[in-house]
């Protein structure tokens, strides 16, 4: 099989098609309101891609990815909130210059952990670093003690719940249940205008494609195969000389970092961040996006995310109370009937026909797989 850089030709084609869809088709086909919505969905795809590596390949199911999405989103929101809370803009408050919700909660000075978020650079560093460090702590604590499987899933869920409770409870420091709202400008650039929304959409799309490429890079590396090997036979990997805990921690951190970038882009495009993106429900929804797309497929995860969210939006407009049921049903259906999700359906039905077609068109292409080519 031919390769383009570290990608197989078929993978490069897949990425190109996705790029065409999100960089050309969607922007041309959708008005800015819908495009902004699509951009929002695509921020969840960062989480789904992380889950493909962590859960699909590594077998580590996290039911708490919302915390990393949220932490990334909050880091971004804190910067934007501080910029929106200049002394002039907040001069009617009893303490001007601090975010409005702090003032409402009788805070008279900016808490110490808010201070770094005056700087955009530090904030961007925090977007990635804080969630990743948090994942590192959880990962080291759990994986070194050989906590895995269902126990790990439950613990991540519990941590996500605790984080939500903390955010909601510490209203004066976090904005509480409402989250951090009323975000306006980024270094003076108004992010609420249509033009800004276009720009942010494209930035997000570009970052997502980079995340896809990074995920492919990890997957084609030996590390990617070690993940699969760990999922299959953890002990065999351990007794082949690998420190299994380190590999698990790495992929968990990577998934967290990707989620965090998605969260920050969410804040920028949607204009707020709240605890409703941190807790158990959003975390599980993101697992469902991944399952629907196919938990082994990086591109499938992106399409799964788009599809489920599109369905959610259309469906919950007409039958809001039925949506959660529908989502649960969808998950069960996927797990039972299509364990490899959309990607599996594609691989079973469309791909063979496509390659037959291609082979007929260009007989030279129909080569055999060389020794040592990956199984997938």
């Amino acid at each position, binding site marked *: 099989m031919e390769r383009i850089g570290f990608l197989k030709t078929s993978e490069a084609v897949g990425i190109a098609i996705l790029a065409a869809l999100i960089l050309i088709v969607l922007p041309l086909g959708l008005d800015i309101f819908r495009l902004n919505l699509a951009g929002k969905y695509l921020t969840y795809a960062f989480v789904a891609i992380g889950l493909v590596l962590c859960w699909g390949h590594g077998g580590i199911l996290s039911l708490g990815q919302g915390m990393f999405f949220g932490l990334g989103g909050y880091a971004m929101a804190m910067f934007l909130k501080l910029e929106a809370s200049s002394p002039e803009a907040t001069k009617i408050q009893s303490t001007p210059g601090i975010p409005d919700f702090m003032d409402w909660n009788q805070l008279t000075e900016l808490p110490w952990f808010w201070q770094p978020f005056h700087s955009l650079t530090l904030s961007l560093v925090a977007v990635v670093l804080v969630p990743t460090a948090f994942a590192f702590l959880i990962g080291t604590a759990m994986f070194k003690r050989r906590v895995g499987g269902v126990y790990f899933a439950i613990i991540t869920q519990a941590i996500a719940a605790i984080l939500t409770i903390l955010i909601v409870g510490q209203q004066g420091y976090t904005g509480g249940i409402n989250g951090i709202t009323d975000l306006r400008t980024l270094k003076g650039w108004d992010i609420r205008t249509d033009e800004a929304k276009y720009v942010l959409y494209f930035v997000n799309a570009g970052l997502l494609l980079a995340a896809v490429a990074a995920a492919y890079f990890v997957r084609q590396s030996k*590390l990617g195969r070690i993940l699969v*090997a760990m999922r299959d036979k953890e002990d065999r990997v*351990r007794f082949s000389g690998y420190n299994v805990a380190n590999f698990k921690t790495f992929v968990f951190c990577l998934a967290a970092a990707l989620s965090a970038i998605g969260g920050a882009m969410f804040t920028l495009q949607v204009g707020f961040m709240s605890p409703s993106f941190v807790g158990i429900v959003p975390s599980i929804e993101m697992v469902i996006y991944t399952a629907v797309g196919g938990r082994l497929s990086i591109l499938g995860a992106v399409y799964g995310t788009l599809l489920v969210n599109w369905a959610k939006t259309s469906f919950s407009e007409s039958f809001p109370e039925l949506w959660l049921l529908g989502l649960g049903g969808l998950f069960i259906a996927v797990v039972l009937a299509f364990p490899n999700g959309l990607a599996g359906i594609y691989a079973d039905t469309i791909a063979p026909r496509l390659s037959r077609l291609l082979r007929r068109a260009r007989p030279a292409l129909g080569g055999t797989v060389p020794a*040592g080519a990956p199984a997938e």
Partner: protein
Amino acid sequence: MHTIARDAAAPDFLLSVEGLTVSFDGFKAVNDLSFYVDKNEIRVIIGPNGAGKTTVLDLICGRTKATAGSIRFRDIELTRLSENRIVEAGVGRKFQTPSIYEDLTVFENLEISFPRGRSVFGALAFRRDAAVSERIEEIAEMIFLKDHLAERAAFLSHGQKQWLEIGMLLIQDPELLMLDEPVAGMSVAERRKTAELLHKIIVGRSVIVIEHDMKFVEDIAHRVTVLHQGKVLSEGSMERVKNDPKVVEVYLGH
């Protein structure tokens, strides 16, 4: 006779197990066990089911932590090391049931065991260069799987899976290779090939084999250790062990 003579002159041994004990909730699966393995020796451990054979391997490779006793490999005390350090020290271990990565190809299975790029970032940067491919092909030839390199390991026969796991260990190039029932479930022809394989791989390393098949044991063993209730019941050449009345009573007599 061996044990007495050798206690004084330990430095020759590749592996010295002394006073090894492990207790699971008070039950001593291995009880004050001592034995020594020479360089370039094939040692076979036999014994009835539940004698503690697998547990001994678990202790040596770090899967189970010893309650008491010591395991010295060359000059290294293994009881204090983590599993991956024990592998790095030069100990390889095959599990009782074939333990391979079914979702990966035979080539990839072997590649993961190639002793390079074992850290997280080492694995990310690992390149499949000529040295890797050559070594994998060489080993694949040895374990009779040269024509199956691109195949998914799940599709191999039971015997082939056993060989693949042996191959994964060979590629690690351990000084001490431990095999838990490598011919269990194999056909007669496969057993013969496996014996041939073991004779080939012994060069430059020691092997501990757990086996029930006496025919196979006779074929490969330099010396035999008989375990019973976590203790050494008898030890020595196959000839000697076979004629030991204690061994006949608890094991071979059945």
